[in-house]
């Protein structure tokens, strides 16, 4: 237990998991639409809505908002999404989404939001077997990217020492988009040199990085991977083959996984069938996930089938209903969680999809 998590983090997680989602929805929506202390952005939307959000009593009624227009987060003042109940001037960080396709979306995280994220992160560290008091290398995007906050989260939540290597995902994406793939290789080599420099003395127990970078490390410096006690992978897709190759290379070390982005995260629930099914559950109740039909984003797909991931942020300090992610996944209901999980996350593919197209 540390200052960052406050009193008894496990009890807090238990309380969250015990939360009634409809009641939570009412609390959050009414907070953001309070005429005096609501959030300026949502109060400004009231006249455009054909319903009164304060009448919402159930989570499923959030569908009435339709998909959240993410473009607004590229232009709005992030502070306007935060209820005026949070004292002004706001003190804290604005975090960006990836920004790999242009101007990033931006969100202000209040201290409560960071604490919420940190508690869940600690919960999944413990669940996956990462020991406190160890030494980490965080080789991920930092700067405007929330994943980089992991450096603080690990050190403060899990009493760890943390080395850091910075990666610029926007540069990688730009290189790929412009076909400069040899330079992608050069940049990866540049990152691997820095990672190896930290790992070679043998003082690091755990690495937090992306699957793509860890794959490159495994391919080029397998002995450094074998010497680790574990890796935590965040941010991009991981295939069953990658998972198997990672666990083999780790020689018994932990391979922890998380899925998410600036708006919300999901912890790995299970790895089944030797990596063929990798499932995640969201940081409930502040984050919920649905898997919806790609052609009709208001309709969930059947359990076990593929659709587009739709995220809803129901934080007291940030309300973002029905964000359509650029990912697809299997809908993964589970009796281990209050809401649906997602499994086998991949980048969204919009392509021909009727069985009649088979021939």
């Amino acid at each position, binding site marked *: 237990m540390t200052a960052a998590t406050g009193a008894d983090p496990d009890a807090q997680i238990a309380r969250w998991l015990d939360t009634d989602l409809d009641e939570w929805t009412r609390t959050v929506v009414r907070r953001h639409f309070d005429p005096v202390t609501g959030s300026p952005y949502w109060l400004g939307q009231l006249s455009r809505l054909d319903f009164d959000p304060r009448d919402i009593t159930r989570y499923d009624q959030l569908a009435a908002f339709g998909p959240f227009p993410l473009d607004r987060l590229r232009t709005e003042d992030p502070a306007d999404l935060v209820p005026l109940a949070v004292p002004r001037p706001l003190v804290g960080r604005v975090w960006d989404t990836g920004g790999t396709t242009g101007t990033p979306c931006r969100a202000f995280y209040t201290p409560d939001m960071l604490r919420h994220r940190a508690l869940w992160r600690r919960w999944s560290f413990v669940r996956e077997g990462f020991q406190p008091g160890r030494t980490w290398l965080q080789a991920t995007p930092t700067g405007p990217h929330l994943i980089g906050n992991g450096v603080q989260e690990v050190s403060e939540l899990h009493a760890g020492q943390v080395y850091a290597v910075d990666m610029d995902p926007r540069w990688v994406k730009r290189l790929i988009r412009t*076909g400069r793939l040899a330079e992608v290789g050069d940049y990866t080599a540049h990152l691997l040199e820095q990672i190896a420099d930290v790992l070679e003395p043998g003082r690091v127990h755990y690495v937090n990085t992306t*699957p793509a970078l860890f794959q490159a490390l495994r391919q080029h410096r397998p002995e450094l991977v074998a010497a680790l006690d574990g890796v935590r992978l965040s941010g991009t897709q991981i295939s069953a083959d*990658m998972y198997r190759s990672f666990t083999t290379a780790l020689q018994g070390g932990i391979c922890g996984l998380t899925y998410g982005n600036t708006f919300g995260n999901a912890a790995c629930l299970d790895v089944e069938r030797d990596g063929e099914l990798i499932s995640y559950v969201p940081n409930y109740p502040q984050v919920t996930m649905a898997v919806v039909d790609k052609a009709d984003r208001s309709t969930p797909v059947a359990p076990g089938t*593929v659709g587009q991931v739709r995220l809803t942020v129901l934080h007291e300090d940030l309300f973002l209903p029905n964000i359509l992610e650029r990912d697809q996944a*299997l809908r993964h209901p589970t009796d281990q969680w209050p809401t649906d999980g997602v499994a086998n996350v991949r980048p969204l593919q919009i*392509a021909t999809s009727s*069985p009649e197209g088979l*021939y």
Partner: protein
Amino acid sequence: MSLGYLFGGGVGTEPHGLELYRTYEVVQCWYEQVSAWTGLTVGQILEEDLPTAQEERQSVGTVREAALAIGVHDVLASFNLRPAAIGGLSLGAMTASCLAGSLGRRELFEMLASSRDTPEPPADDPRQGIAIAFGPVTDGAPSHPGENLPGVYLAGDFGPTADGSQRLMMLAGHADALGALAADVPPGTVVPLPGRTIAVHTPLRRPYREFMAPRIDAIPFSDPEIPLLSCLEPKVLRTAADVRDLFQRNSTDPISLVDVYTGMKEQGVRLGLVMGPSIPEGILAFPFPVVHIERPEHIEQALTTAYELGIDLSGAPALS
């Protein structure tokens, strides 16, 4: 870590590949070349309505699908992306054979164009058709709802659906028999496909096979230069004779996507690129991640996915 290229079968009636054609000069040049070889205009290949006569329609449709698939291949090749293994279904098997170096592009397209001369079936022949069918997921040979029914054949096995709950198959045969079967089984179990009047991959295609046999015999096949997976049995085609045999049997023998992707997996494929729209996205279970490439934005998605999965991409030129 290697790439596999997958080519679907069948003949779509909708225009495909317009965006890729408009975006990439390499695709425009390629379509001009196909036009010169086949006598079809670029518009006919790309987007105009297909002819109404059955065999002519089939011929132009195959040219359309194969042209797009090879166009996608050429765009990827312009970024120095090349497959370590290749395979396809039906027409896609022939396209894959061509890209594996077993026959020239010109020979492939002249063969496809010449199939328009296949005699139309007699007007009083029983109508033919195809249907999509769902069955249980079982090990070994697929079990389908029309087994032992006269006039109904298993024409294709696409393997388990993405959720693993069912096996997706293609039945073909006499249209009346397929219609009767569809009415007899639980709704949605067998779905006849409207407008599909050729019982592909069944013995009913024997006249086509016999008509095309001398044309295929005249093609100078070579040994494939990369592992080429058969869709007719679990097999890597390694010789010119293997490929010729596939071409000869392709029209009458059932096809299996499972044989293709299982073989690719055994060849070390860790990312599959599906060339063109002929294998629908999100419906089937593949043993490795796949990216479907139908439009220009899918090219970037393929490159990004290859990077994320750790496939070497060094040395590629700029996207156009």
